């Protein structure tokens, strides 16, 4: 184990800004990509559902 205390861990030997800056942005960007895709999927599903009900109405 490299670290004796949490504060030492977060300081990263003085490189905290750079290390955590890299990590946080990476995680954030990948998370945003996921969220945007989930939204896109919902939008596509809503559109199809609308069309399906429209079809059924016409079919009746």
């Amino acid at each position: 184990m490299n670290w004796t205390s949490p504060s030492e861990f977060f300081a990263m030997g003085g490189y905290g800004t750079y290390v955590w800056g890299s990590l946080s942005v990476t995680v954030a960007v990948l998370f945003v990509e996921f969220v945007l895709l989930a939204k896109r999927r919902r939008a596509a599903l809503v559109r199809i559902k609308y069309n399906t009900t429209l079809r059924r109405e016409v079919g009746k």
Partner: protein
Amino acid sequence: MIDWFKYSSPKTFYPIAGKAIPWFAAIATVLAVAGMYVGFFMAPTDAQQGEGYRIIFLHVPVSWMSMFIYVIMAFWAAIGLIFNSRLSGMMASALAPTGAIFTFLSLWTGALWGKPMWGIWWVWDARLTSELILLFLYLGFMALQSAIDDVRRADKAGAVLALVGVVNIPVIYFSVQWWNTLHQGASVSLTRAPSMATIMLVGMLLMALAAWMYTAAISLMRVRCLILEREHHAAWIHELKEIKQ
């Protein structure tokens, strides 16, 4: 003999992809946690770069992935052109944004590493410069596809561009390296980090595999979106349980 063409139809592929996504996502999470643990808790402090070197556990995997995705993209593009299958084109389109994101992350983490190591945010290092050009290639691919309204034409045009790009990448990389040695002398290379210990390599490999699995999961998600958007008129779409419920 497996009937590959059966699996290449969006109708069959859509549910299979849906089942595979959680698995890929789970494996990606496990690998990422393991990789981070190795990288931050097991790998020793570097003698020269101190703790700052730990950025490589992010930087190297995303850089690998950014280049690798372009190759896979070109592979699907080629398949799409040869066999004229719709799904291949969608795969290529689905990979491009993720590839661009990884390329951006590679540049971002590279800059954040460069600042403490070299004292400047941007170094015209061969690798960073190639990554920047790779980002332009991804953006060009995406811009071309979004500019063409007819999706079939967009797929095919994108495929040609991806193939041209993949042929050019080695040339670009070689030329940038040549230019770099000419103008700067030997530069500090990011991956040739001093005395790479085995444990560091393990951490990097774990993270690279995690990035790979993430790419698989997210690009399958995007393919499913593309299928829903493009095939919304098809009868089978209306029979899906997520539509019926």
